Structure formats: C-alpha cells, structure tokens
C-alpha cells in the first residue's frame, strides 16, 4: 500500500544519523548546509535522542492521520458499511482507536516518568468524557508529550532497568516498554489508514505518491 513508508522513515532516521555521523567521524550522508555546520561537530547519538526520534516519527504519522478524519466521521466504524461477507462486529470506532493509543501511551510512558493515567480511565480507551475530536486530539498530543518526557529520562544505563506495567505480572525493561509503545502505535495506525481510505481519504503520509 505505502511503498515509500520505509523510505520516508529512513529519511528521518538518516537525517539524524547522518548528522550524528559527522560528529563521530564516520562517513555520513548529510551535507553541511553552512560553513558553521562544517566546523561544528554534531553531538553523538544517545539512547535518549534515538528514542525521542522514534516517538516523533509515530507522533507525526499518527497525529496527521487522526487530524485527517473529519469531525462528522470521527465515530466511523467499518461495521457501518455493511460490507457483504465482512465481520466488523464490535471493532473500535476511529475515535476509539485514537483514544486507545493515547491511553496506552499514558500507561507505557507513564511507567517510566511516573505520570498517572487521567482520572476516569477505567478501560483501554481512556476516560469516557473525552468525546469530541478536539478533546481526543488534545488527549493524544498530551500522551505523546509524556513519551518525549520519558525519552528525556532514558540513557544507556537505565534503559535496561525494569519497571512494572499493569498488564504484566513481571517487571519489563524500559527498552521493552519503549519499543512496545512505539510499535503499538503503528499497529493501530495501520488500521486507521484503512479506516481513512474507506472514507475516501488518502492518509497524509501517502498523499502525493
């Protein structure tokens, strides 16, 4: 479907890594744009920066997709299309997909930062009083802000230390939490791009391809 997704992600990754490569003496691909850049070594990559970049990647794609759905279709579910032979009974609405990922972000990243879930969170889709598109988007963006806060707290030493998360009886490493949080966002992003296309909307990341 999206032939260029890996390419786009690579561009983001390579931008960072290329800049970092200049600082580390390796043969980077990014060319300095100013004389100052040629003489100012870039900071070396750190765990904190790498994870922060990964959060930025999913945040950009996910928020763009969430914003792309018109407000009057925010409670769309494929079940409403009544496609012959399909089975969409009980699936999340578009709004619930967004709320779910925001709730998961709060839970995963909060395990690292100590931030609490919002009051009224009694299930995987977050507080029931978050209903409008504007409210849901704010909830989503706030959840990614906690992700960035968590990334700022991570380093090469503490990334392998463990934390408790609600659905696991055993502690898990902060690296596991970090990869899970970002990957989980992409799982639901993949579903949401199909929801968008079902409504005649090309996902922002695929526009122009």
């Amino acid at each position, binding site marked *: 479907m999206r032939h260029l997704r*890996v390419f786009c992600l*690579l561009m983001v990754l390579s931008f960072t890594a290329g800049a970092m490569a200049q600082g580390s003496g390796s043969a980077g691909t990014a060319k300095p744009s100013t004389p100052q850049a040629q003489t100012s070594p870039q900071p070396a990559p750190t765990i904190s920066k790498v994870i922060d970049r990964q959060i930025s990647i999913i945040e950009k794609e996910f928020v763009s997709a969430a914003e792309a759905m018109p407000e009057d279709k925010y409670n769309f579910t*494929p079940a409403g299309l009544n496609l012959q032979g*399909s089975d969409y009974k009980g699936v999340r609405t578009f709004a619930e997909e967004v709320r779910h990922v925001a709730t998961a972000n709060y839970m995963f990243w909060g395990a690292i930062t100590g931030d609490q879930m919002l009051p009224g969170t009694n299930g995987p889709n977050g507080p029931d009083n978050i209903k409008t598109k504007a409210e849901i988007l704010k909830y989503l963006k706030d959840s990614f802000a906690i992700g960035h806060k968590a990334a700022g707290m991570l380093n090469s030493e503490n990334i*392998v230390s463990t934390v408790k*998360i609600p659905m696991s009886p055993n502690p898990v490493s902060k*690296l596991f939490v970090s990869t899970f949080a970002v990957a989980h966002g992409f799982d639901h992003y993949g579903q949401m791009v199909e929801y968008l296309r079902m409504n005649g909307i090309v996902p922002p990341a695929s526009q122009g391809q």
Partner: protein
Amino acid sequence: MKDPGMLRIAILFSFAITAVAQSPRNAAPSGPGSPFSVAIDAEITKIETQFVAVAEAMPEDKFNFSPENLNVQGTELKGVRTFAAQVRHVAADNFAIWAPMTGKPEPEGIKAPNGPEEMKSRQEILKFLRDSFAYSHKAVLGLTSENALELVEFRGSKVTRISLAFLALTHVNDHYGQMVVYLRMCGVVPPGSRPRPR
C-alpha cells in the same frame, strides 16, 4: 494491584503482552544474549506470533484479496497492496532491515521492498515470511548495549543499530494493522481478537 481501575485496564487491554512478559528471558536483563537483544527479541516474537497467525488465517482463495476490488462507493483504495503483497513486502523488508546487523550483505533473491514477484503461492509466501522472522531472531543477537548506537549502512544511509531495530518492529506492526482490516473485510476475525480459551 490495588487500584480497581488499573486492574480493569490490565484485563481489558487487548495486548498479547502477558505471555511475552512472563518469559523469564524478558523479565530481567540477564540470561542469554545482551539485555538489548533480549528485549528486542521478545518484541520480534510478539509481532511474529501475531503476524504469522494473521497471514495464515487468510484462506488460499482469498490470498490475493485487495479491498480495491470491492468497489465500494466513496472509498479511496486504488492501487493498495493485495494481502499477499503485504506479506511478501513485510518478509522482504525483514531481511533487508536486519541484514546490516549481521555484517553481511542482504541475502540473495530477497528483492526488497516487495519481494520476488514470481513468488505467488500462499505456501511459498508463508515460508518466505517465517524464514524472514528466523533471520530477524538471529540478527538481533548481535545487538548489545555497547554497539546499539554504532552506525551501520542501510540503503545508502548511516543509521544507528537501535534505530534499525525500531524500524523493523514498527514496520511489521504497521502492516499487521492493515492486514487485520483486510481479514475482517473477508469475514475472518483476526486470531488475536478471537475469544481466548480459559
């Protein structure tokens, strides 16, 4: 867990994390492999289990299904990948993304990003997929806390090893999300969403 709200969240979250988290290999930074490779390997296992199950759940006569062919009014599904192409693409990119971790060239015949076009049968494509995850498990063994931030070359650019691990995992999850929607279009409830035996 004393907070009943959090208990409900734990129960209701439909993640396949519990089995993974219960694995002793993921519980603490010890055991075989470095803490880095152990954590990432657990993630590979999680998405491998889900993704292979979804790929296997599509009947052979629908393996080339594309939502475009439903011709539903008001949709924008022109040119999207077929189900088979999604699986082949993920398998090919598993090989391509993990290859730099091995220090060896990408295996021959992978033809990333879309895989070999001549590979058409469900059986062949599923084998290609399983082989790609086996390759991923081997490649991640080379990831350590010492080299996680080292730069490796991937498609002409330099990226950190840990960034590539993120890319590999997020890429599979993205397509997994698309494929569960395809499955439901064909009347198949994704295995991960079916009632679990008690």
